[in-house]
C-alpha cells in the first residue's frame, strides 16, 4: 500500500532565496497538487508551504521511487536545476516521515519553538489536499492524527505557554500588573516597529484606548488613525502622561525623554495607580531608575529579552515531554498503518483468483457445450468452493493478529507466492477507505 514520504526544505536547510523560489502560493495549489499526482508512484499528496518551510507529503507506492519523483516534480515545477535543489532538500520515509510531520505540526521543528501559527498552516495544507482531492484514506487518517498529536502536545505540555516575542512578553507582563486590560489606556511614543507591534497586541488584548504621540504630529495622526486612537502633540506629552497606564516608547531621542522625577510626579497625580513603561528605544527613552518608584515598572528591551530567554528555556524543557508524546503517537500510527496492509492484500488476492475462476468456468462451460443452466451452475459452484477452500488458509492467516510484528513480512510473502501485482490503483484505496476512514477528528 505504499509509504508516507516527505520531501522539503525549511529555515535550517535552505536560505530564504531558495525557500521563496520553492514556495507554492495558494492560487497555484490546485495545479501543483494535480501535477504532483501525475507522477507514476505517487498516490496521495499534500503540499505545505509557509515562509519557513516548503514540504511535499505524499503516499508513494515505493518510498525511494516516490522521493525521486517528488524531487523531480519540485525541480520541474519551479524550474530549478535538480543538482542545485538537491543540496537543500531533506527527505523522510515511513516512520521518519510520520514523526517529522507530527513534530512540525506540534511546532517542535519551528524556528521559534512552540509558535502557534504552524498548526493552522498545516491545516490549510490539508484543506487544499481535500479541496483538490489529492488526499486518500491514508493521508486523511495521517493528518487527522497529526492534528490530534499537535493538540495533545499543546494541552499536555507548556511548550507554547509563555511569550517568546518581545511584544507578547510586554502584553503578558501588562496582564500580570493590571489583570483586566479593558479599562486601561496605553500611550505610544515614537514609531518603532516593535512598539507598534506591541501596541497592536495590547489592543487585541482589549486595551480600552491608545494615545499616540510623535515628534512629527502628522505621523502621530496617521498612526492614531490606524490604531483608532487619539493623536497627541509631542510637547503636550507631560500633560497626558497621567492618563496612560501603559507607556510604550521608542523614539530616536539621544537622552531620556521621561526622567525619574517626571514619573514620581505623574504617579503622585495618579494617586499611585500603577504604571507600566515599556522602553524599546536604544538609547533608552525612560530613565531606568524610575523603576524604583513604587507602583511603577520600567522594562527596557534587554529586560524583555531576558524574560523571553527564560520562557524559551522553559519551552526547551517542555519540548522533551513533547518529543515523548510524538514518539508514542508515531508508534500508534505505525500500528494503524500495519493493520491497513492486510485488507488491500486480501482484496487483490480474491480479485485475481476470481478472474482466473471466471475464465476457467467459461472455458469449461463452452467445452461441455451444455446450454442448460443446471450444468453451468454445477461447474460454477465447484469452482467457487474450490477457490474458497484454497484461499481460506492464506486469508485467515493474514487476518489473524493484524497488529502482529510479522504482518508486513507476511503480506510480502503472500504477495510473492500468489504473484500479486504491486498494490496499486485507486480502487484499493477506495476499499481500504471503508476500514480506515472511520476516525476523523
Amino acid at each position, binding site marked *: 500500500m505504499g509509504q508516507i514520504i516527505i520531501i522539503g526544505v525549511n529555515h535550517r536547510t535552505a536560505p530564504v532565496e531558495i525557500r521563496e523560489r520553492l514556495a507554492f502560493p495558494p492560487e497555484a495549489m490546485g495545479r501543483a497538487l494535480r501535477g504532483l499526482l501525475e507522477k507514476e508512484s505517487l498516490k496521495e499528496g499534500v503540499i505545505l508551504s509557509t515562509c519557513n518551510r516548503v514540504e511535499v507529503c505524499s503516499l508513494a507506492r515505493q518510498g525511494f521511487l516516490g522521493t525521486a519523483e517528488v524531487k523531480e516534480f519540485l525541480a520541474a515545477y519551479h524550474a530549478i536545476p535538480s543538482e542545485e535543489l538537491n543540496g537543500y532538500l531533506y527527505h523522510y520515509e515511513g516512520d521518519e516521515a510520520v514523526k517529522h510531520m507530527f513534530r512540525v505540526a506540534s511546532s517542535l521543528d519551528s524556528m521559534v519553538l512552540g509558535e502557534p501559527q504552524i498548526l493552522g498552516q498545516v491545516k490549510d495544507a490539508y484543506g487544499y489536499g481535500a479541496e483538490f482531492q489529492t488526499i486518500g484514506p491514508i493521508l486523511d487518517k495521517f493528518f487527522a492524527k497529526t492534528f490530534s498529536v499537535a493538540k495533545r502536545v499543546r494541552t499536555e505540555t507548556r511548550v507554547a*505557554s*509563555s511569550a517568546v516575542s518581545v511584544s507578547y512578553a510586554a502584553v503578558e*507582563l501588562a*496582564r*500580570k*500588573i*493590571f*489583570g*483586566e486590560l479593558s479599562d486601561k489606556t496605553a500611550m505610544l511614543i515614537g514609531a518603532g516597529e516593535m512598539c507598534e507591534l506591541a501596541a497592536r497586541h495590547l489592543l487585541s488584548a482589549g486595551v480600552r484606548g491608545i494615545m499616540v504621540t510623535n515628534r512629527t504630529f502628522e505621523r502621530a495622526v496617521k498612526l492614531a488613525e490606524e490604531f483608532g486612537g487619539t493623536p497627541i502633540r509631542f510637547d503636550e506629552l507631560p500633560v497626558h502622561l497621567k492618563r496612560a497606564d501603559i507607556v510604550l516608547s521608542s523614539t530616536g531621542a539621544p537622552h531620556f525623554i521621561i526622567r525619574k522625577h517626571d514619573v514620581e510626579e505623574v504617579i503622585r497625580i*495618579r*494617586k*499611585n*495607580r*500603577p504604571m507600566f513603561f515599556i522602553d524599546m528605544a536604544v538609547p533608552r527613552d525612560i530613565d531606568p531608575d524610575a*523603576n524604583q518608584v*513604587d*507602583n511603577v*515598572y520600567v*522594562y527596557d528591551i534587554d*529586560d524583555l529579552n*531576558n*524574560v523571553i530567554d*527564560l520562557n524559551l528555556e522553559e519551552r526547551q524543557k517542555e519540548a522533551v515531554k513533547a518529543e515523548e508524546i510524538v514518539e508514542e503517537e508515531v508508534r500508534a500510527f505505525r500500528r494503524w498503518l500495519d493493520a491497513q496492509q492486510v485488507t488491500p492484500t486480501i482484496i487483490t488476492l480474491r480479485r485475481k483468483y476470481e478472474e482466473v475462476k471466471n475464465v476457467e468456468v467459461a472455458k469449461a462451460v463452452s467445452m461441455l457445450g451444455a446450454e442448460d443452466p443446471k450444468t453451468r451452475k454445477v461447474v460454477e459452484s465447484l469452482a467457487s468452493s474450490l477457490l474458497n477452500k484454497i484461499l481460506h488458509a492464506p486469508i485467515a492467516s493474514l487476518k489473524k493478529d493484524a497488529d502482529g510484528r510479522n504482518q508486513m513480512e507476511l503480506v510480502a510473502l503472500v504477495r510473492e507466492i500468489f504473484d500479486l501485482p504491486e498494490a496499486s490503483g485507486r480502487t484499493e484505496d477506495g476499499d481500504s477507505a471503508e476500514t480506515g476512514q472511520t476516525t476523523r477528528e
Partner: protein
Amino acid sequence: MHVLLLKATTAFYLVGSVLYLYFIVTLKERGARLGRMFLMAGVVLHAAGFALRYAEAGYTPVTNLFESLSFFALTIAGAFLVVEIRYNLRTLGAFVAPLAFAFSIFAAFLPGEVAGLAPALNSYWLPIHVLLLFIGDAVFAVAFGAGIMYLLQEKQVKSKRMGPLFRRLPSLEVLDEINYRCLTIGFPLLTMGIITGSIWAEYAWGSYWSWDPKETWSLITWLLYAALLHGRLTVGWRGRKAAILAIIGFCAVLFTFLGVNLLLPGLHSYSNLSR
C-alpha cells in the same frame, strides 16, 4: 458529638490546604476543585458543630479559648470561600486555607467540654460583639493572604526575575483589589465590634473604656487599619504599602486575640489557657 465535629473539621481543613498547595505546585485543576469541596464540607460540618453546641450550652459558644479558636477557623474558611468563589482566585487557597487549619488544630489540642458561662458574659451583647469581631478578623486574614501574594508577585515584576510563582499568582491589580475590598468590609466590622464591646463594658463593668490590654490592643489594631483605609482613600496608598499594612494589621489582630489572652492578664481573660 459537637466536640468531635468541631475537632474533626481540622482534618477537612488540612486536606483542603494540602489540595490547594498541590494545585499551586502542579497547576492541576482538580487540586483546586477538590480543595474547595473539602473546605466547603469542613465549613458545613463546623457550622453544624457550633449549632449543636449552642443548643446544648444555651449560649453562643465563643467564650473560651477552644471555642474562640475553633470559631475563628470557621470564619476564616468561610470568608476565604466567599472571596475565592467571587474572584475565582484558586491560588489564594494555598495562602489562606492553612490559616484555617492552623487555628483549627490549635483548638483541637484544647479541652472541648462545655464549661458553663461566666456570669459576666451572660448577655445579649456576647454574640453581637464576638461575631462582629471574628468575622472582621477573618476578612483581615484573607487580606493578609492576599498581601503576602502581592508582595511575592510584586517582587518578581519589580526585580524582573520571574520564578515559577510568576505564572501561578494572579495579577497585582486583583490582589490589590482584594486588599481594598477586605479593608472596606473588615474595618466597619472591627469598628462596630469595638463599639458594641464598649457599650457592653458600660453595662457589665460600669465603664465604656478601661484600658484593659485587650481594649488597648484592639485600639492599636483599629488605628492601623484606619490609617490604611485613610491612606488608601486620600493619598492612594495601594500596592506594596497596602499589602505590608494588611500583613502588619493581621499580626496586630493575632496579638489582640491570642497574645493578649495568653500573655497579658486583664478583664478579658475568659479565654486564656488556664480555663
